[in-house]
């Protein structure tokens, strides 16, 4: 576990275990999140992300392990630590018969806010999520994206120290999705700790300071993006397609210092290299000089998908 050492963690999860009958949904998960940090739980559907979040938010009890929020132990019967969290569930959690303003006011009251402070904060959040002009409308008439934004707004209303977002962009149009991601970036910038679960690699790469890759209820690896990518060996791949003497080109290219390996067939070469952007010019020249007429050159660099594949042997979206 590595957290920013200058700050006490807002959330500490230790050896969390949760079983449903014979299935162990979460098996010894540990991590910590500091103030201002966005921490991602990246894994496919069924990996144990939502179960982990349910225990972190005090919705279900853990069979073993502890969750501490702001120094207070969390459980379904806890009250104090729940004041510190804002939960944005994966499923929309808003009342369709109530207006956007009434939804925010209702949950604000349950959070203990009242009077002018609540009224002012509701208007702030309505403006933040871009629903100020539709505030008086029953949410059953809202689009999916508007409902998603309100779903997030409710989680933010009481300005929690820890915001928990469970796959907030599932089923959202690209425009709303981008808006949500920008909001999360802004919140993190304001010092809020964010726990973000997703199975979208791009979201985790864009938002998260640190990422835990989770599969089958266990954390496979944890670290910054670069730290995780180094787990794959940090090599890139360059694919050359064309005609000519691919065997001669392969022999020549293997001699280049940046090239670690070459796989060849009649029409293409796949090279494993260090730092592909730097090496690609020399490789293209070498292939051409060896008599290959190139039709296409592709560079692929390792990403979190590669890391997941490397760690689990399966693709992230399986």
């Amino acid at each position, binding site marked *: 576990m590595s957290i920013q050492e200058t700050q006490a963690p807002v959330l500490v999860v230790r050896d969390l275990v949760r079983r*449903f009958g014979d299935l162990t949904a979460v098996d010894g998960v540990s991590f910590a999140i500091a103030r201002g940090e966005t921490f991602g739980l990246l894994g496919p559907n069924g990996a144990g992300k939502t179960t982990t979040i*349910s225990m972190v*938010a*005090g*919705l*279900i009890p853990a069979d073993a392990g502890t969750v501490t929020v702001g120094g207070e132990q969390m459980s*379904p*019967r806890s*009250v*104090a630590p*729940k*004041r510190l*969290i804002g*939960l944005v*569930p994966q*499923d*929309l*959690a*808003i*009342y*369709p*018969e*109530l207006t956007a303003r*009434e939804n925010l006011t*209702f*949950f604000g*009251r*349950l*959070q*203990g806010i*009242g009077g002018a402070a609540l009224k002012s904060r509701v208007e702030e959040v309505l403006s933040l999520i871009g629903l100020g002009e539709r505030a008086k409308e*029953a949410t059953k008439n809202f689009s999916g994206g508007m409902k998603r934004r309100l779903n997030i707004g*409710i989680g933010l209303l009481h300005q929690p120290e820890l915001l928990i977002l469970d796959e907030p962009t599932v089923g959202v149009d690209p425009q709303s999705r981008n808006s949500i991601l920008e909001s999360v970036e802004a919140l993190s910038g304001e010092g809020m700790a964010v726990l973000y679960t997703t199975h979208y690699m791009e979201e985790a790469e864009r938002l998260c300071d640190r990422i835990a890759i989770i599969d089958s209820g266990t954390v496979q690896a944890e670290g910054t993006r670069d730290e995780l990518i180094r787990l794959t060996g940090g090599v890139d791949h360059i694919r050359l397609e064309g005609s000519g003497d691919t065997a001669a080109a392969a022999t020549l290219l293997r001699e280049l210092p940046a090239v670690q390996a070459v796989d060849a067939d009649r029409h293409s070469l796949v090279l494993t290299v260090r730092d592909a952007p730097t090496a690609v010019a020399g490789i293209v020249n070498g292939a051409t000089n060896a008599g290959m007429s190139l039709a296409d050159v592709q560079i692929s660099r390792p990403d979190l998908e590669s890391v997941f594949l490397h760690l689990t042997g399966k693709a992230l979206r399986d």
Partner: protein
Amino acid sequence: MRQLLTMTASDLRQRVRDRSVLIFALVVPLALMYVFNLVFGGMTEIELEPVTVAVAAPAEDELAPVLEDVLTQVDGLDVTLQEVPADQVRSVVDAGEAGVGVVVPEGFGAAVMQGEAVTVQVIEGDGTGLEAGVVISVLDGVLAQLTAATVTATAAAGSGLPPEQLAEIAQASLASGPPLEVTEGQAADEQLGPAAGLVAGQTGLFLLFTVGFGVLGLVTEREQGTLARLHAMPMRPGLIIAAKGLVSFVLGVVATSVLLTVGGLLFGVSFGSPVAVAVLVVCVVAAATSLMFIIARVARTAEQAGIAQSIVALVLGIAGGAFFPITGTGALAQVLDLNPIAAFTRGLGITAGGGGVADLGVPVAIMLGFGVVMVLVSRLVPDRGAAL
């Protein structure tokens, strides 16, 4: 407390907005009361057709006019007397000109006065039905009274009294009426007439639907995801359940009170002391609400909850007399007695008959006992929808 009231107020607001509670709790039961009252109310009011009675009586007999007078004074039955000679009574009846024929023999009055046996011949026509039955019953009654006088006179004669005193005693016996009189009483739940029973029964039946809008909201919230968010709020989980129970209770009390009041006004029914009725309403709503907690734990989805609620409501409602009075004997009667809707109806019977709060011990105990048992059972039943 503030959170409890916030959740309760929000739930009530939503229930009123979606209008389903207004339809189920008020509109449908009132409409059904009206329809059932039209259908069943008419069946209980039997109208007797006019009937003609052919009478042959000796002209100078002292007591024969008594029989004739009695026949013309039957409540609810229009009797026309047709005086005919004794030998023509049967033919008149057979011809259908009269529904009943009565032949008073010569010396009828004197025989009664002297305590001697005497026979009055009654001929019933074909197809006269209930009206002839009523005429014959009335004649039976009068003749029984005359027979009593005869027996009295005979007994007096046996004791050696002079004839003039025998006549006085016989007349006194006639005038005094029967020595024993049977008065028809009513059980508590029978003190509600057909219309009142219908109002009470329908109110009880639809109460079981109305209270579902509160507690069974737990299942709906679980499905729409808001229950998870409520559990993440800084409050005890028990407050959420308490709020749902309070919503059920408020909706139940309001709907039951409105139905009894409006139903009473529409059908001209009075249920007696408002305070006693209020006690019954509070108890039956508490009992009905407690039952919903079991359904909320057993049902995984709102659809399952709705089906279970409908089954429970119909079984308890019908057994409680929502459509017609249900009675049983032995063990069945004891089971029926434990039905809170039946206890509610019985309680309304007591209040409608003039009873007060002090007279409601048994129905109140049944309803509150039912509520306590249901709450305890609901804590023991596994929560099938608990996995979020």
